[in-house]
């Protein structure tokens, strides 16, 4: 299909831009922040107060438009009772996070971090992993 191929090509060309690599981490970060805000019943105004900024800044940040520093990220995470974990992977990898609370034994087969190359068949990966 022409439009699908064309979009894929555009996506490949966009790999050289910073915007391209920013979308994923920003979405993950804002989503986690919102989840913790909901869990801890923290409003945007309260979060702004805790980090010493304005409510407008929090709105801008959650929309993914702010270019914040690592210090701001840590401040935000601390304000909602969380912590930041950063991981650099292969560009073709898909990373999935799974939290494990300290002091709790992991369930069978549970790992803290999983990464596999994108577009790789998961069935094949499993078969290869079993081979000696």
């Amino acid at each position, binding site marked *: *299909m022409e*439009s*699908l*191929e*064309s*979009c*894929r090509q*555009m*996506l490949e060309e*966009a790999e050289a*831009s910073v*915007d*391209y690599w*920013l*979308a*994923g981490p920003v*979405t*993950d970060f*804002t*989503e986690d*922040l*919102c*989840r913790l*805000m*909901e869990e801890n019943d923290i409003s945007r105004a309260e979060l702004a107060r805790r980090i010493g900024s304005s409510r407008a800044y929090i*709105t801008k940040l*959650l*929309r*993914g*438009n702010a270019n914040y520093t690592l210090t701001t990220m840590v401040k935000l995470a601390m304000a909602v009772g969380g912590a930041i974990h950063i991981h650099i992977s292969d560009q073709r990898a*898909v990373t*999935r996070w799974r939290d494990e609370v300290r002091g709790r034994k992991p369930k069978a087969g549970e790992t803290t971090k999983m990464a596999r190359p*994108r577009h790789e068949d998961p069935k094949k990966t499993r078969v290869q992993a079993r081979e000696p």
Partner: protein
Amino acid sequence: MKPGRVLTYVNPPVNMHLVRIARDQWDVLGVLDGKGCCQVLDFLRQLPPNYAAAQRWMLQFLFLHLPVAGPPKHNTALCKSLGGGIFELRRQPKGQKLRTLFFYDDLCRIVLTNAFLKAETTPRTEIALARSSKKRYFEAKFRHRLQILKET
């Protein structure tokens, strides 16, 4: 046995075509129109150069992030319900409001209906279009008349 009757069941007409945009944990599909064009992909492809940042973000999101993590559930600034089972993916860098509407099917399937740029309010025609696509999709699914074009 009436042969004509049997043939009707053997070759039921397909009345909704979709294209698979990406698939991982989530299956991301796009609705195709009568001419076999996906409005979402065509629209994103033809965005003017001043929307390049929003375009890149949305493409990256649809092709890479959505199939792996699904739509954001908590952050309403990025994904919001419009009622009637229709949701919108939102992106607005520097006031450029780019929206993609979708609905869920089963547990891990997302069907993208249409994409557009908006000013202050979301055009009702776009929401109506998404609702009509949703209705057609479930009717076609119920009658086993869905056809999904495979990834090339």
